[in-house]
């Protein structure tokens, strides 16, 4: 459950990250590939080396989708409907991986924000990303 304050904090954080969306997104992906090598299997068709065009493009896409979702968390199911279909029927990424990516996103945020990534911000962000992942997996079965 997210309080009004937490929702505002989340929007504030993601809007601040918009100019560095590609950097944050690709950093999170790179961390996930380094810590959980099994996740690389979903990217065998791309060049996922550090700072590659594919990685930056992909990272940016993900952060933009998260930022969009953050704008109205109560409408996540509506906002994510096309992505739900994509992940369920085409990408079919095992949802356990969403948790792994979320963790690496939190680490990327901590590296980027330092002390500003307070425990309160961390808690709010973790809750939001869990909700986001749950909605993303809704059409799987």
């Amino acid at each position, binding site marked *: 459950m997210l309080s009004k304050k937490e929702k505002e904090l989340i929007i504030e954080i993601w809007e601040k990250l918009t100019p560095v969306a590609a950097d944050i997104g690709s950093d999170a992906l790179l*961390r996930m590939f380094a*810590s959980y090598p099994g996740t690389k299997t979903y990217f065998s068709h791309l060049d996922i080396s550090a700072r590659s065009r594919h990685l930056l493009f992909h990272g940016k896409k993900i952060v933009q989708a998260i930022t969009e979702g953050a704008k109205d968390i109560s409408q996540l199911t509506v906002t994510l409907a096309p992505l739900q279909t994509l992940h369920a029927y085409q990408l079919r990424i095992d949802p356990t991986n969403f948790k792994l990516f979320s963790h690496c996103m939190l*680490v990327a945020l*901590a*590296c980027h924000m*330092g*002390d500003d990534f307070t425990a309160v911000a*961390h808690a709010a962000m973790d809750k939001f990303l869990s909700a986001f992942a749950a909605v993303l997996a809704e059409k799987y079965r």
Partner: protein
Amino acid sequence: MVVWTESELSIINSIFSSLDYEDIGPKALCRCLIVYPWTQRYFGGFGNLYNAAAIKSNPNIAAHGIKILHGLDRAVKNMDSIKETYAELSTLHSEKLHVDPDNFTLLGNCLTIEIAAKLGDGFTAETQGTFQKFMAVVVNALGKQYH
């Protein structure tokens, strides 16, 4: 048996020697209790945990955080025998403290985040990968004596 490369050993030693246990220990534990409030169930006798501010100023929690970091230090000093080093601690957490081993991962995640916040860009993807491998071994060893 866990195999560590020279590089991995160097990374782990470098991370821990850059940490002030008296600072990062309390921070990691506080973060865990705030981000995953259900973990507070194990700290009933520690005093006021009513909100984030109370947790952060609780001296018992701070002391315990430091204890935990020193516990991790034992693994760092015995990288080739972490399972044996933690056998007694594992039994303690299982039989006396009754801690669900899933919680070890949660605390590990919070420690990772604290270290990331401290080291910033220095906590590269490769460094994180090595650190997560270390934490996975620690968590596994702590859960070994549960039955």
